[in-house]
Structures are given as C-alpha cells and as structure tokens.
C-alpha cells in the first residue's frame, strides 16, 4: 500500500442518506474472483441507463468528477452488505477519502484496510460540504484534520492503529502475523 499523509482534492457530492453497498457495487458484479477493473461497475445502477449508456446528470459522469479524490455523502454511507467490493470500487475509481456524518461499521473497517479514508464529521460541516460541491479540501492524516476552503479546520476521529498503518503504507495483516506466539499460547491455554 502507498503511504497516505495528505490529500488535497475537490469534492464530489452525493447528498443521499443511507447509501448502501448494494448501490455502490450491485450484487451482480460480485461474481468476480479478482479486484481488477472493478471501478467500471461503481454505482452502476445510478450511473448507466438500461442500455448501458452513462446518465449525464449523475455526478460521477460529470467532467468535474474526473480526478476527484474525495467523496462527500449524506449520513450513514456504506450500510448494508459487508462486500469489500464497495471500497475496492471507490478506490479503483480514484477516491482516497469518503466524508459523511456517519459511516457504517463494516464499510468503515473495509475502507481503512484499502487506503480509503473514512472521515466522520459533524452535521454542520457535512451540511456545508453538501452545499458546496467541488470545494477544494485538504485532509491531513498526520494531524487528523480536514481543512475547508473557508479556512475552517475540522478534527476527525480515526482508529489509531489503522492511522499508523496508513501513514506508513503497511498493512495490518503483517502485524497480526507477528502475533503468532501469543496466538499459539492462547490456543495452548484453551486446549
């Protein structure tokens, strides 16, 4: 994984609340056995019409969305299915952070493991972001801050260990594997 310290990007805004992972990555695309090329299915049913043509007024089809790394979504994004294909798709599309006032647990976990920052902000900040699509924001993972173009600086919480992994570009699996002795001890003790 690439280390992440700072993200500066314009935002893409999807104001819907409760955007579930079935919308982010519909089930029919889960028969894949790899992660390759998954971005083309991202939000497929909102993005394409029944003939497979892009729906012009869907936000990800607009030219301004190209190159944006920050997705701002209404409250409770990522609810529903545990499919990691959802953060894979967002990452593959180019997103590096998702901002909302609430982010569902499993989606948040999955995002942290794939270099996609789940950033939970207060309702007022979210309202501002939703009202100002395309705002240029800066995310500083070292300081855990989100800076708005107004100059406002918002602190965000993030799980401390995942943060260190993301800052250093290392994954958690290595750490778990290094706990082998403790795990063996635990198994022996319980047997």
């Amino acid at each position: 994984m690439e280390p992440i310290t700072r993200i500066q990007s314009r935002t893409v805004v999807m104001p819907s609340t409760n955007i579930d992972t079935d919308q982010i990555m519909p089930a029919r695309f889960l028969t894949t056995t790899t992660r390759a090329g998954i971005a083309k299915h991202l939000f497929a049913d909102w993005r394409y019409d029944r003939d497979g043509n892009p729906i012009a007024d869907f936000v990800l089809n607009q030219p301004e969305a190209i190159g944006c790394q920050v997705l701002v979504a209404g409250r409770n994004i990522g609810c529903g299915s545990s499919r990691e294909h959802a953060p894979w798709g967002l990452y593959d599309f180019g997103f590096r952070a998702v901002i909302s006032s609430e982010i569902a647990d499993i989606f948040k976990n999955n995002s942290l493991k794939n270099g996609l920052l789940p950033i939970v902000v207060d309702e007022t900040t979210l309202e501002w972001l939703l009202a100002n699509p395309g705002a240029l924001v800066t995310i500083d993972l070292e300081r855990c801050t989100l800076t708005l173009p107004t100059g406002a600086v918002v602190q965000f919480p993030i799980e401390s260990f995942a943060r260190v992994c993301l800052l250093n570009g290392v994954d958690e699996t290595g750490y778990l594997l290094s706990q082998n002795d403790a795990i063996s001890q635990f198994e022996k003790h319980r047997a």
Partner: protein
Amino acid sequence: MPSTLFEKIWAAHQVVPETLDTPAVLYVDLHLTHEVTTPQAFTMLRERGLQVRRPDLTFATMDHSTPTDADQLFGRVPIKLVSAAKQIEQFDKNCKEFGIELLDVMHADRGIVHIIGPELGLTQPGKTIVCGDSHTSTHGAFGALAFGIGTTEVGQVLATQCLLQRKAKSLAVNVEGALPAGVAAKDLILAIIRTLGVSGGTGSVIEYRGSTIRALSMDERMTVCNMSIEAGARAGLVAPDETTFAYLKGRAHAPAGAAWDQAIARWRTLVSDPGAVFDREIHIDATQLKPMITYGTHPGMSVAIDEPIPNLLNDPVFQKSIDYMGLTPGQQMLGQKIDVVFVGSCTNARLSDLRAAAQVMQGRHVAPGVTCLIVPGSQAIKREAEREGLDKIFIAAGAEWRESGCSMCLGMNGDLVPRGAYCVSTSNRNFEGRQGIGSRTLLASPALAAASAIAGCVADPRALNA
C-alpha cells in the same frame, strides 16, 4: 464488577488486550466461508505463501451464486450464469487446496451459511463467529458473538484465526409482553429497526432481552438477530437458555456425553449479570405490535399493516425513495398490487417459516399473474419440509419449490425480480435494485408474504388465517 454477556465473550477471546494504540487481537472460534467474499482472500494467502491456520475451525458452503434450479445445481445442465459457475468452481478449488471442509453443490447438508451453522450445531453459545457476510449476526441468537467481516479480514482470519478489533458499545433492546396472535418475529425486528433507525445501532452490539425474547423459539431468535445489521449494529445476541440447549442437543457438531454436561454448565454462565450496565437501552412493548411491511428503500421504512405510509414530502430522500417504489405518500399498503412473492433467505427460510407460509397457502391458489418462489434455507430443511408434505401444498397452490440458496434475496444466481415489479419478500433488504435492477421490495413475514401471494396484493395474514 457485573458484566454484560458481550463483555464476557469479548474478555474470553482477547489474545492481546486492546490499548490506546492498538486494537485487541481477538480469537475466532468459528469461521464460516462462502464463494462470493473469499476468492481475493485466498489470492492473498497464495501471494504471501501462507496456509490456513485452523482448517478445523473453518467451514465452507455454497449459497450466494448457486442455482436453485435442480438441473443446474446438480450438473445435469450447465449453470447459466458463466461468472457464477466460475466462482463456484474457484471456491471448490480453493477449499481443496487449503484443506477446508466444503459443503459443495452435491452435499446433502449444503445451505445458506447462516442456516447451516446452527443446523449442524457448529454455532454454539459463547463462541466468536465471523463470516464475510453482514448477516453473520444471525448466530448471535445462540449467545455467540457473531459478526460480518470484509474480504481482507477473511484473509486475516484464514491466516491467523484472529482479527484486530476495537470493543463495541453495548445496546440493550428490552422487549416485554406477549406477541399478539398473527404477529411474527419478523414483525418484531422490523418494529425494532423502525424504532432504532437504520444507523441507530452503529458501533454497538445489541443484546435482545426481556420476556418476549425468552418466549421466542430459536428460529424466531435467529430472525431477530439476523436483522441486527439492518439497524447498523455490529452484532445482536440473546443469552442462551433451555430453548437454546434443547435446540442444540444431538446436533452433528454439538458436544455429546460428558462434554455436553460441561458445555451446558459453561453456557449457563453466559448471561448479563444483574446490574450490568449497557451504554444504551431501549424498551419495546410487544403487546402493541402488528404485522409490518416496508414501503421504502431501507428496512427502517416500514408501517404496520393497517397504517398509511407517511407523508414526508419536504424530505428529498423520502421523495426519491417513494418515487423509486412507485407509491403515493399517505396510501395504505394493504391492497397494493404485487407481482412476485419470495419466501426464503437467511432471515425466514427455516422450517417454521415454511410451515407458516404453507398454513396460509393450504387449499388456496396463488393469484393469477403472481409468481411465487419458495426457497428453503438448506437442503436439510428442504427434505424435512417434503417429509411434512409442505412442498405439495406449495406446488398445488401454484408456487415454485426450489433447491436451497440465497436466491432472490440478492439475485446473484439469476433468480430476479423484473424491473418495476413489486415483490413481497421475507428477506432482509429492500434496497434499490437488491432483487434485480429496478425491483421494488416489500419486506414482510412469511405469513404476510403467503397471504399476499394468494390475494395478489398486500394482505393481512390474520384475515386469511381466521
């Protein structure tokens, strides 16, 4: 200090305790796997040259993308969906290569992962249970700490039998009083989700408590715990009791002989101590509940069967949802015309669910123009239902009787609701497109679904059963 059931299970599985800087290393007693959320995890094992640490604690089944059509399932004709066929084949290969016991398409014990765990006695009180599937919360009905994980975590559990976890908050859902006649466990959990909201349980483990919960059968407790995730909760659990023990006794993987007595003694300690403090509590009066049905595009958007759907037209999200559903604010759901009925899924495809549907359908016929699909949760349930003659009731009523699997719950295997069609479904998610592009899902109990199949429109099962 008095502790909650969740805290007891948590404490017993911490390999390395949580600190400010690092999450706990939590040991997993049972890892259930299926074909959809594992391929990339096995790839990770191969890339890193890792083995499965505890194949003996890992079980595999095929359910999500498997056909429910017998000819395709048993290989008499090729599986229509090529990508699904490939995924099934890949899973078979992965399980063989890594030494994991797989209930493959031909296996007599195969079924939906959250149905076969309990059925085989793998699911037991006090265990930590994970699966790459959000409805793993189902197993909490046995007083296990059971939750869904992502594919990266599936890989981590395969390699280390452990997960990195922060301790969740605790939420007590207290339900008191007898459920009125004709009100099912599904109605109860839909009412709970409506009260909590679809993110009300975020960051929490729910413990369902109170006289109503104690009076539920295991099948019903599973229905309730199954949908914990629909309130955003990490997991949902019920303290084990005599009902739990009676269900487990004699099951294939349940302890036997002296081990059974020891297990029971241990399991009896798995209750929240008097005075244990929950981070939050809510109270529900079961005596006021009615059959429920959803009208919107998330499981919190539900009404009692005789209640009009709300009118929140200044809320753009509500408006979008209602437009998608093609419904009118203020209308009654009762009498709404429907096209498809699906009785199935890990929420409501156990034997008691099929019996409830059969009781309504016996001697009646599915309304013209309605397709009714009955999909048992496992091959064992299918055999048992056939032994009782339930299949004959369904077939005589004009319903389709299928092999087990997830089927129309998520439409990965080609069992789909057509665009724009209304489907009364006993599954757990009414998200846009969940049952097929443009599908409109109305979640309800098996009895309500069956009554609607007969009537051709949303119907109150209490009227038909009377």
